[in-house]
Each structure stands twice: as structure tokens, then as C-alpha cells.
């Protein structure tokens, strides 16, 4: 390809936008002698009709093979001048814009010398660039004017609606059995405190009903190949085992499902292999013991609490897995009832009765003294893991109040003066 050597440079003043900082006359002086330049001129408004006419005239007159307009950002007028070039039977890709306004005159408004020098540099770089420009011809190629959106949350749904409203076919693919995503599960949005369901459900129904949208829920992307305008996507449609056309969503099947009626809950990975054999065997044994109970969770947790002196996290996850109770429900129960501890407890557990009779007989003073001596509050364990202090709401031994239980030993008629002695006694 022959390098261009009859290039025309047209420098715009842009009123005063360029001219007030760039010495347009000296730029033209410099540029007109640059190798490859056949013509160079400056004008007050290049993009105006008279300005464009000047360019047309000069293209013809000087048989220009390249056109550089040094003016504002190409985002504004690149199209203008490329159309002009096309008009003049000059390949539009042999027309380039040198931005000497946003990149030059505006940032350097008060530095005329700098601005002028920079403008020259910018134009010279553009000249060298344009010398390499080939005569590109746009080719029409067949495009598949359809979209596939992965993910049916609020973003995916909105994108699908926008594209579909534009008249194009859209495939909306969602992994879970329903679109809606996380936003649907919230109670308010921030900061407006809007109702997410009120926002989402109209969009969701529209996505379902829109003529241009194909909803593929409970489906996952297997493979994507191809390129822009010509993608090939493999989608696995997971087996619903339900006739979608007649299903009313009443939920009766889910209520009676023997295997599992857990929907919309992501599966956690199994912890079976993370447990050591001794613990797993023990947990299996405990679960077996209550296997004929309709509500086994609490007795199972109690036995685990008794065995390990607290409820280890892995044990809770294993129970959730084996009993098919959602982990959050297991934690809800574990944190609701006082007899469970989520933290390891000390070797000795000191329980103090907070019953009314004991209170009236001075159990507060005993509690204060124990707290002072052990330096822990109820529910806490000493740093050396020796003692855990707990309060109990009535042991039913009121005749002996105030009552303190150290491990399994009940100590009656406690008083603050006896505390140190009791704690020192080792068993």
C-alpha cells in the first residue's frame, strides 16, 4: 500500500476555544512544510457549512489523498468529516481527527507556548498515523439479532425487558426454579425503603408474558462458543418432572414429598468427611437413638451438648445434613435454648441458682463474689478453661437456698464468705 503523501490539514479555531490558547497561525506555518502535507489552512469554524465547503474545495483543488481536521474531540465531529470525505470520494478511513481542544487548548489555557507546541506535536503524530491508514471498506455480515442473558436476578430481568421492548428476541436463563434473585428475598431496598416484591413482581410477570422473551428457568449454561453476533450456547434444562403448562403452583406436592421438600435452598457441601471417625460414629449413634422421634432435633442436641460439653460447629453441620433440617433452623434452636453452649465450656461448670427463694436469701451477693474471684461473667469461661460460670433459673432446691452447683455437686446455704473455699476445693 502506498503511503499517503498528499495530506491536507485543516486547523479549526473553534471560535476562541482553540485560538485563544493555540497560536493557530504559527501552527499552520510549521505544519505546511511537514513531509507529506499538500495543503494546510486554519479557519474559525471548521464544522460549519462554509468551513466544510473550504475543505471540499481544497480536496478537489489539491487532489488530497488524506484529510486531517485538527479540532475538538472525535466524538463530536469525526462522523461529520468522514461523511464529507465519502462525499468527495475519499475513503472515510483516510480522514482522522486531531484533538487539539479537549487534549490541548483547554487544559493549557494559560500557557500559550505550551499549547501551541503541543498542538503541533498532536497534529504531527496524527499525520504519521494517517500515512498508514488503509482504504477500509465496511462489509455487511449476517448477525443473529437475538440476546441470551445469564442470570434472572433484577439485572437480568431488566436487561431482558429492555432488549425485548426494543423488538429483539431474548433468552433469559436462570439456574434456580424461579427468577427474582436476591433482591426478591429482601424486605426493603436501601435507601428508599421500597418494597422489593412490589418492584420485582411486575417485572417478573412481564418477563414471563413478553412475546419476545423466552424464560428458561431451572436451567444452566453448559457451553458457550462463537463470537459477537454469532454465539452458540448449550443450555441444560434440568428435569422438573412437572407439566409446566398445567401446574398451578399450589405446593401440595412439596408438602407431601417423601424425599425432601427443600426448594430454593442452595446445597451446602457435605461435612461427612471433615469429621474424625470417633465423632462421626458418636453422632450417628445419637441420631440412631432418636430415629423414631418425630421431632428429634432438641434431644439430639442435648446429647451432643452433654457429650462434648458444648455444640461443636462441625457437629451442627453434620446434624443438619443427616436430619435434613436447614442449618439456620439448627442454629435457631441451638441459640434459643439456654442449656446449649456454642462455645467450649470449662472443665468445671459452676451453676448458681437464680430462683426467687435463693434471690431473697442473698444469691446476688454470692454471684457477685464468684464473678469477682473468677473474673468472669455468667456465660463466660476463665482463660485457663478451668471454670465456666452459668446461671440457672431455679433448680427446685429452694429449702437449701442459695444453691450453687459445682459440676454435679449441689452446695446449699451458700454465702459470699464460702465462695473462695468452694472454688479452691478440687475434686
Amino acid at each position, binding site marked *: 500500500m502506498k503511503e499517503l503523501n498528499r495530506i491536507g490539514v485543516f486547523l479549526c479555531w473553534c471560535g476562541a476555544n482553540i485560538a485563544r490558547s493555540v497560536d493557530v497561525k504559527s501552527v499552520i506555518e510549521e505544519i505546511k512544510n511537514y513531509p507529506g502535507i499538500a495543503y494546510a489552512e486554519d479557519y474559525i469554524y471548521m464544522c460549519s457549512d462554509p468551513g466544510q465547503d473550504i475543505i471540499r474545495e481544497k480536496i478537489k483543488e489539491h487532489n488530497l489523498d488524506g484529510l486531517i481536521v485538527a479540532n475538538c474531540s472525535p466524538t463530536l465531529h469525526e462522523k461529520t468529516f468522514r461523511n464529507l470525505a465519502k462525499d468527495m470520494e475519499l475513503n472515510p478511513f483516510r480522514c482522522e481527527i486531531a484533538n487539539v481542544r479537549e487534549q490541548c487548548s483547554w487544559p493549557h489555557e494559560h500557557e500559550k507556548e505550551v499549547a501551541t507546541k503541543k498542538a503541533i506535536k498532536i497534529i504531527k503524530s496524527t499525520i504519521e498515523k494517517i500515512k498508514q491508514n488503509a482504504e477500509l471498506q465496511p462489509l455487511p455480515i449476517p448477525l443473529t439479532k437475538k440476546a441470551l442473558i445469564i442470570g434472572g436476578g433484577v439485572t437480568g430481568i431488566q436487561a431482558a425487558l429492555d432488549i425485548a421492548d426494543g423488538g429483539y428476541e431474548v433468552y433469559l436463563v436462570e439456574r434456580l426454579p424461579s427468577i427474582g434473585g436476591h433482591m426478591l428475598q429482601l424486605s426493603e431496598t436501601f435507601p428508599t425503603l421500597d418494597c422489593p416484591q412490589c418492584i420485582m413482581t411486575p417485572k417478573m410477570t412481564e418477563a414471563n408474558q413478553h412475546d419476545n422473551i423466552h424464560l428458561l428457568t431451572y436451567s444452566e449454561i453448559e457451553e458457550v462458543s462463537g463470537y459477537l453476533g454469532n454465539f452458540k450456547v448449550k443450555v441444560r434444562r434440568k428435569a422438573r418432572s412437572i407439566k409446566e403448562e398445567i401446574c398451578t403452583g399450589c405446593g401440595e406436592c412439596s408438602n407431601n414429598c417423601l424425599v425432601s421438600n427443600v426448594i430454593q435452598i442452595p446445597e451446602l457441601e457435605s461435612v461427612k468427611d471433615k469429621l474424625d471417625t470417633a465423632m462421626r460414629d458418636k453422632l450417628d449413634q445419637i441420631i440412631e437413638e432418636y430415629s423414631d422421634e418425630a421431632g428429634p432435633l432438641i434431644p439430639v442436641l442435648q446429647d451432643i451438648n452433654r457429650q462434648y460439653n458444648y455444640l461443636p460447629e462441625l457437629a451442627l453441620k453434620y446434624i443438619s445434613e443427616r436430619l435434613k433440617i436447614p442449618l439456620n433452623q439448627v442454629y435457631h434452636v441451638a441459640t434459643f435454648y439456654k442449656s446449649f453452649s456454642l462455645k467450649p465450656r470449662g472443665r468445671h461448670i459452676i451453676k448458681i441458682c437464680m430462683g*426467687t427463694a435463693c434471690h431473697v436469701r442473698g444469691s446476688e451477693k454470692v454471684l457477685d463474689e464468684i464473678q469477682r474471684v473468677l473474673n468472669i461473667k455468667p456465660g463466660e469461661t476463665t482463660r485457663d478453661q478451668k471454670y465456666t460460670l452459668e446461671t440457672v433459673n431455679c433448680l427446685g432446691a*429452694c429449702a437449701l437456698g442459695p444453691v450453687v452447683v459445682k459440676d454435679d455437686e449441689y452446695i446449699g446455704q451458700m454465702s459470699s464468705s464460702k465462695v473462695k473455699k468452694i472454688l479452691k476445693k478440687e475434686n
Partner: protein
Amino acid sequence: MKKIKNPKELKSLQQRLSKTQKSNKLTILVSTKATCCQLQNSTAVTEKLKKEIEKKKLKNKVELITTGCLGFCELEPIIIIKPQDILYKNVQVADIPEIVTKTFIKGEVIDELLYVDPSNKKRIKLETKIPFYQYQNRIILGNNAKIDPESIEDYIKIGGYSALAKVLTNMKPEQIIEEIKESNLRGRGGAGFPTGRKWESCRNATAPDDIKYIICNADEGDPGAYMDRSLLESNPHSVLEGMIIGAYAIGGTNGYIYIRDEYELAVKTLKNALKQAKEYGFLGENILGSGFNFSIKISRGGGAFVCGESTALMASIEGLPGEPRAKHIHTTEKGLWNRPSNLNNVETWANVPIIINQGTDWYTKIGSGNSKGTKIFSLVGKINNTGLVEVPMGTVLRDIIFKIGGGIPHNKKFKAVQTGGPSGGCIPEQLLDLPVDYEKLTEAGSMMGSGGMIVMDEDTCMVDVAKYFLNFLKDESCGKCVPCREGIIQMHAILTDICNGLGKEGDIEILEELGEIVKETSLCQLGGSAPNPVLSTLKYFRNEYEAHIKDKCCPGGVCKALITYEIDPELCTGCHACFKQCPQDAIAGEKKKPHIIDTEKCIRCGVCSEICKFDAVKIK
């Protein structure tokens, strides 16, 4: 053991067992099998007793029954010798040889082991003459003294399960319900709902899969109440018999006993009783040949007071957190696992066999007005005779506290008696002539509750008591509804400020307003009755609140921020004992000279006051 196939076989077993009781034999009762007796070393005492009897070759002449709770906790361990009815109190292991030699063999009485009446300092030999027992009507608890709780045959011997036999032979379910209705038996758990009516509505409820639940509420969450534990440890079969009768009347198929986790021994005793009842054919299939099937399981609580509430209890059995629900639909229609469920308290169930056996004419003669039968109270706190008392409804509070309870120790002045647990209120001295009765106690601003009766004296601060109950309830609130969850916390915060000397004008009015709101709008009765302790102490002891707020002083001498410990120089001998014990080194003084407490350093722990033998430490 061979299964009892029909009521006739039961009758003949009962007769056979009664015949083995020789009239010239001594029967020794020793309270061994209840939790607090065991804390008083009764196991060791019993072992020693068994060894001595063996040693002195008295096995054929003496029948030893290890019983459960005999009620008079203050005197445990107790030995009662029948037929003379001699009662020995606070028996130690060292006393046993003398008891066996002197009393069993020689028939002599050991004076030092007899109960001393504090009013006249006289020693009382006979159990029946001890005022504590004399003024009670122990139709339920009395049986504790006749049986070993681990022996179903002991229970059968005294007529146990004969009410069940009567019901299965002679009565139709509707008749049984009528009988319970006529007896006016009301729920002993606290609310006092007519039991017969509850049974009727459960019987009439439709069970889509024919399963109905019969549940026993043994959660006993009220601090200070332990009568249910005593019943379950000492006479578990009385509760089981009541439940089986109830199941037959209502059409129940499965039973649950929901028992709080803290009651280890009671669970053990119950498990044993259930096993035996099944072996003997009182539970399981074709009970006593009637074709009626019923079984009972135990469900242990997780340590939550709110699980004493019926819907929370059922949620707990289902393995869910114990959060109550609104009762627009009663649990008798949709309860446990959405099936008709009848829930009653332990003591209520224990009343049923008695009513069936003795009849409503007999039963309704006990009690007064609309409250029939007896009620078991746990009389505790600042009282001489701590224990479980069973009195006819309508007995006057004064009699319970002073005649049965023996009054206040150390000659202190009575201030108030708290009934109904955290849902109840405090009754002052001027109302001591109130009878114990569902309606009258509620009118006075308290309630019957499960039967906890805590006596308070002049050294109790009523504001502190209100704060104590709110502290309890704020931790036990399930958190589901706003008034209870937030209201209790705020009321507690105000009371804490008042007790710390930060109370201000207007606090009392806010407490009253908050109290009314929490009462009216809570979802269940935990919140609905939570303000009662505050409102009742405000009603009768407003002056104490005002003293705390205006004068920054605590009349009861309890609130640490408002009291100071001082040593009376007149009484102090300078023995130096307090000096050594003070954890803050706040006491100064030379030996043999009066000591002084530095009030700045003093943390009001009370150790000095406890160990001073001369009573020289005073609280101001």
C-alpha cells in the same frame, strides 16, 4: 412381671400385696429419692440404715420403704417410724446406730431428734401433731409417704390404678368428662382453666388422622416452685394414671410428658415408671383388656421458661424454637403437629385419680367458692418451715405462713408474700387474711400461679424484687413480639437506674404506663403478666420506690448503691476476723479495738457481715 390383663387381676394383685403387710411389723420411712433430700445426704443415711438393720438382724421385723419427698424440706433427712408415727428430723449418719438400738428395738424415743415447735420450744414426737403437717390436707402429697417411687407394686398396694380400672369398666368417656366438670377441677399450672371443659373441647375436636395428643406440662419454670418435681420424683404413677384416664376420656392416642432439662432425677424416675407401667399393662395396647391403646413418651426441655406456655411447649416438642403463637385457634383443636392436643399440668393430672376414686361429692367439699380441692404450694424464702404444703383452696394466707410455715426466722418482721412466680405479685401484711383462691388472689393484683409462695421479710427490698423478676423475664422473653421484648427491657432499665440511685421524678408514672401497654398488647401471657410484679409492688409499696428515687435510700438494705456497711463500735470486739476476709482491704483497725470500714473502698459484698460473730456489722 406378668402383664395384668383385666381389672379383676388388678384387684387380686392389690389384695395380695396388702396382705403381706404384717401388723406387728415396724414400717420405717426414710426420704431418699428426691433431689433435695439427696443433697442433704439422705443416700448415705439410708445406706447406713440398711446396714444397721442387717447387722442387728432386724430384716424380718422391720419394713424399710425408701420414699420420695415428704414435704418438710427444712427437716430433711426425715425418718418416720410407724405405726407410732414418730418423726425424727435432720438425721445424720452418726445417729443411725442409736436410732436402731433405742427406737427400733427398745421402743424408746430420742428427744434430740424430735422436731421443736419454735413458738413454744416444745418437742413434738408425732408426725401428725407437728403443726406443719397438722394444718395441711395432703390428699395428693400424703401418698409420697407410703410408697417407694421406684416400685409400681407399692403404688398398686395403696390402690393405685384402681381409678383407671373403674373408668375402663364402668364409665363412658362422656361420663368421665362430666365427672371432672362437676368436680370443678381447675388447671393447677397457674391459669386455673376448668379442666373438664378443656377435655370436652379436645374430645369434640376432629382428628383428621385419628391421632390426639395428651400432654403433661412438667416444665415448671416458675423460680421457687418445685412441687411438680416432687410429684414426679415421689409418685410418678399418680400422674401417669391421670393421663391414661384423660386419654380414655378424650380419645387420646399418644402422650408426651414435657419435662424441663434440669430435672435429671425426675426424668430417670419417670423413665422407670413408664417402663414398669408398660410391663404391667397400664400402657401400650389393650390396656386392662379394654381394647384401649395409649403410650407415653418423654420430651426434655432445652432450658427456656417460655416453653411452659402451651404453644411454645408444643413447638419445642416438634424440635422448633419455643415461640408462642396467638391462640385464635386453640391447641385443643390444632396443637402438637397441628392435631388436637390436651395439655394439663402435673398436679392437675395427679388430682384426676383421686376425683374418680373418691367422687365429686367428696372432692367438692374441700375448697371454697369456685376453687375446689387442694393446692400444693412451695413455701420458701424467709420462712422457718421451708417445704411443700398442700392445703384446701380457701385457706387463709396467714395460716399458711404462720401456722404451717412457723413464721419468719430470727424474729424478723413479715413484709410480703410473693405468689404466682414472675407472673404474680406481692401481697402485703394488710392482706394476709386473704384466702388462697384463684379469683381472690387475682383481685389483689397477684395470682395463684403454679404455687410458688415466697415469703419476704423486712430485709427484702421490694424494688429489688421487681427488678429481679424483670431481669428473669427479659432473658426468657422469646423476642417474637415488640411489647414484651422491648417493654420489659425498658422497664428493667428504669428499675436498675432506680436501684442505683439514678431514679428521677416521673419514673414511677412511666413504669405504670409501660406496664399497662405490655400487659394489654403482648402476644402471650409471658409478656401479658410480666408487669405484674412491678405493678403490684407499686400498689402496695410505693413508699419504697419513692424512698429510692427521692431520698436515694433503700429501706430494705439491699440495693448496693444506696447502702453502706458500718461497724458498730459498741459491739465490735476487735477480733480482726473481718479484716482478714475483706476482699478490698477496706477494713482498718487494730486487734482488740473497734474496726472501721472505708466506705469508698467497700464493694458491699457482705462477707464481713456474714462472718462477724458479734453482729457488729450494720447495713444503713
